[in-house]
């Protein structure tokens, strides 16, 4: 505890000396998130200044080793750091797919040179990463991908097409699964490459969803040349990297969902209901809807308890493992159901797509309901999660 206390003192002093007053408190000038990369812009020079100081100390990714751009501090120390930053109303803003998903996989599979290069650049916010996994023909059967990488001297030549590439049109680099051996069994002919999205032959096209425009893109590769040195792990063993990365993704989704979707829904479901149907003797007058709302709220509380139990177990040294699939399954379905309820409760205003006589809030409810339809499909369908649970958690035999 003495160590932690002295660390706290140290951090307070550093924050006092380095965090500009404009970057603290409720009305600070910081952007919500810094995605990084060549397109990053800054709403205020102080935000950039503060970000540079965070980078310098390794505080954008505090628990990473110093050699890779982190601060090399322990989880306990990081907790103190986050508490102290929260105390003065500031934060470390860097967030992108490179940190939560790619980096853990690189730590496990990349060469030392690759780690030094890519982890450092990621930690410094120099690269915004996107993910090249799904393909139009492959769907849930990810490993049946067909984008080809053919060896030509010291390069691979890439041809093919990816889909559901989030933010491909604004990202700098991609981590990408390609087929390097079309003859091998499907899981054994895949390699994992990193390359620049400005390479000649790369183009992107945004996907319009049922909810309107979206961050998702289709990405096309037309004779894109990628140096062999940018392959992570052994040739044809990219599926090992992919699997590890998917596990991190599910964990991130389960945890990330906590603050955002469920939290936002909680605040407003009862409010939406009261606004739409009023109250009769202090109760919601529509008993059928009330029942559905209460069931949802109870499910949410039970989900929260389960997340807490799992985190407590993790703290006690028991890893999450394949139960991650349970969180992805349950959270996405619960939020989808919540969005559905909210839209049904909101009534006629939520049916309006465009119109001059309707509140924007309700129109937003409808877009969220529609966007939520993607949550049980993208990032692994509910059916895939059910397969994973029954196979890897319950030990039931394959089909």
């Amino acid at each position: 505890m003495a160590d932690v206390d002295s660390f706290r003192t140290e951090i307070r002093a550093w924050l006092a000396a380095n965090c500009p007053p404009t970057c603290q408190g409720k009305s600070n000038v910081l952007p919500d998130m810094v995605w990084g990369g060549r397109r990053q812009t800054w709403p205020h020079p102080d935000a950039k200044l503060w970000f540079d100081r965070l980078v310098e100390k390794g505080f954008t990714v505090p628990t990473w080793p110093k050699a890779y751009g982190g601060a090399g501090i322990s989880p306990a120390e990081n907790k103190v750091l986050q508490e102290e930053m929260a105390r003065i109303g500031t934060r470390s803003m860097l967030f992108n797919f490179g940190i939560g998903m790619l980096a853990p996989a690189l730590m496990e599979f990349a060469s030392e040179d690759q780690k030094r290069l890519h982890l450092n650049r990621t930690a410094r916010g120099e690269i915004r990463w996107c993910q090249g996994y799904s393909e139009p023909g492959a769907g849930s059967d990810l490993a049946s991908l067909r984008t080809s990488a053919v060896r030509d001297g010291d390069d691979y030549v890439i041809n093919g097409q990816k889909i559901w590439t989030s933010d491909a049109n604004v990202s700098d680099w991609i981590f990408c699964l390609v087929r390097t051996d079309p003859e091998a069994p499907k899981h054994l002919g895949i390699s994992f490459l990193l390359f620049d999205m400005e390479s000649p032959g790369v183009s992107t096209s945004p996907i319009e969803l049922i909810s309107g425009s979206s961050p998702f893109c289709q990405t096309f590769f037309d004779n894109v040349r990628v140096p062999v040195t940018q392959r992570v792990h052994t040739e044809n063993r990219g599926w090992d990297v992919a699997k590890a990365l998917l596990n991190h993704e599910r964990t991130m989704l389960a945890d990330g969902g906590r603050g955002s979707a469920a939290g936002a829904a909680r605040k407003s479901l009862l409010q939406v209901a009261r606004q739409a149907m009023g109250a009769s003797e202090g109760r919601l007058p529509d008993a059928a809807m009330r029942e559905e709302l209460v069931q949802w709220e109870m499910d949410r509380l039970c989900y929260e308890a389960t997340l807490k139990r799992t985190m407590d177990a993790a703290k006690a040294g028991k890893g999450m493992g394949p139960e991650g699939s349970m969180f992805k399954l349950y959270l996405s379905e619960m939020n989808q159901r919540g969005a559905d309820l909210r839209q049904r409760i909101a009534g006629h205003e939520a049916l309006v797509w465009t119109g001059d006589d309707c509140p924007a809030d309700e129109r937003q409810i409808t877009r969220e309901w529609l966007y939520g339809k993607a949550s049980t499909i993208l990032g692994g369908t509910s059916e895939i999660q059910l397969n994973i649970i029954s196979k890897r958690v319950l030990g039931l035999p394959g089909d």
Partner: protein
Amino acid sequence: MSLILTEEQVQLQDSANAFVADNWTVGELRKLRKDTGKGYPEALWQKAAELGWLAIPFAEEYGGLGLGFAELGVVLEELGRGLVVLPIVSSVVLGGGALRLGGTEDQKKAWLPKVCDGSALLTLASQETSRHDPYAVQTTATRQGNGYVLKGRKVLVPDGHAADAIVVVARTSGALGDRSGLTLFLVDPSAPDVKVHRNLLLDSRVAANVELNDVRVDASAVVGTVDQGADVLDQVLAEAAVALSADMLGGIQQTFEITLDYLKVREQFGAKIGSFQGLKHRAARWFCEKELSKSIVLQTLRALDEKAENALQLASVCKARVSDTARLSGKEGVQMHGGIGVTDEHDIGLFMKRGRVSEMLFGDAAFHRNRFAQMKGY
């Protein structure tokens, strides 16, 4: 009462089916998003009129065919299958229906022939609250001289922006929520104190919000009996709920068939996805729900025609069941299509959107279960 189609009804079905195939594709809905006019294809409206569809439920003396909901349902089901946008429910069932049930001879003579030949579009302005609640009417009609002054705001008036006349539900007595004290008035939407806001709904159909800022109408504008408007209103809304259910049934069936076809061709993990029990059993359950929905629609359409004692109860059973099945269909249709199902490019999402709007029009499943419970003493 037989629950299978007569030979004439099968012919009508074939003709409606051919009409859709020759004149419409689901993709037209994407164009309607940018339309700022009437919100439906006027040429098709004219063709539908020529085929006599708008005349189906009206007596011959007003230019009608003297047929019933069983026939109208056949047409609406086929149009729903193709997601065709035409204001039949608005004009024929809601506005025209109010006049058919409660109109004076003068009103009928003035309007019904035009409804039948498509030269006029009628609709009904009933709802005021976020959720369907037919007696929650705050719009007032105050007696003044030889007429009334209407004041209030209506929402979700189907095709209200394109209507030539709107039947407005207003309160002439009683308190908010009372069944009695409602009166129906025929209002000209081009009158200076009427303001119509056009809203594009999420399924590319159009509804309007209508402001009535001290609108003066003559006593001859009253449809039905003063203070007893709910008698006509209940019947019209039940008929609209059932007519819409027929449209929804078409959408449900088409969603099911599109998805079933997909299950038979799409491959994953080296097999057709329709061979996976996980999807197969869900498809089988969905099939059962679809069949039950079809049965209750057929039965209720006929119960309306026969003026069965339990017709209003059945209307609630029908709308509740079909709404639930539409929600299931939208959900399973999109989910079973996977990624492609959530793109705007694929049609399946359009079916889900239409089903969703219809689910909430004229009372959702919760509303109708509650109403049924009250009627039956639960």
